[in-house]
């Protein structure tokens, strides 16, 4: 007999260990708070619990930020290259979408900060 009962247990425990390690090492930290800044000033800090939208005014026009449970994104922005819009939904702690021409930023935070500080 190639595989005995204990062997199966060892293999299962090993597979469980690998999965745990994978989640631990690659899982990342899901964010639970969105921080919205305009011209460097925090204008809104909100939990990622319910769907809501914010409109923030900058030098170019209005940036629209959409928040849904567990994720947030820049929905519309007047900046010419649309980089922050193309970033799509942000979920992980430490992620940020910056609309530089309009001086608006959206940052996701978790229980513990991924970085001490971010300089833009």
């Amino acid at each position, binding site marked *: *007999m*190639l*595989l*005995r*009962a*204990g*062997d199966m*247990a*060892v*293999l299962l425990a*090993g*597979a469980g*260990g*690998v999965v745990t*390690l*994978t989640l*631990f*090492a*690659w899982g990342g930290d899901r964010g639970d708070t969105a921080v919205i800044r305009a011209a460097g000033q925090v204008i809104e800090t909100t939990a990622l619990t319910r769907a809501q939208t914010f409109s923030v005014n900058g030098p170019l026009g209005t940036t629209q930020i959409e928040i849904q449970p567990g994720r947030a994104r820049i929905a519309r922005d007047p900046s010419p290259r649309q980089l922050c819009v193309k970033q799509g939904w942000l979920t992980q702690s430490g992620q940020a979408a910056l609309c530089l021409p309009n001086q608006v930023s959206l940052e996701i935070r978790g229980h513990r900060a991924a970085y001490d500080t971010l300089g833009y």
Partner: protein
Amino acid sequence: MTRSVIELPVSADDRRIARLAALAIGLTLAEAAIPSPLPGVKPGLANIVILLVLLQHGWRAAAWVSALRVVAGGLLFGSLFTPGFWLSAAGALVSLAVLALARHLPSRHFGPVSLSVLAAFGHIGGQLALASWWLLPSAALLKLLPVFAAAALIFGAVNGIIVARVLAAPAPDRRQSAPCIRP
């Protein structure tokens, strides 16, 4: 002038260990030809020999074969006393320590596959412990842990199944090498 002759008595045990160690070294060399995307991820074919020795001739013989494999492998690769050699030695050491404990598991339930998987985890664990403590203290080895662990699980299971099959196969005449005719 007196001729002094130093004669080292060679027991049958020594010959057997030397033969098995040669087998393990051969597998180590053959394995080095297999390309690997990540240093450290390799099948560990020599562990098949170590495990067979452990199950047939006991832990002491397995430790000898393992030590000879590491040192002779280092000589053949030209990596003796380099970091790679010490990583290999650390892996072999932890793996042997794990096997020393694991061989006392009840063999009714735990066969070669268990021993092989545990030894593989010991191997990579020993190497990573030394690497993270000595070579790459601040590097992101953590991010690679799942890859190493998955490789250890898969290769450990495959090697264990090979060992189980070799043990289960009937030995035709217990001969392990070509007959040696003495002049």
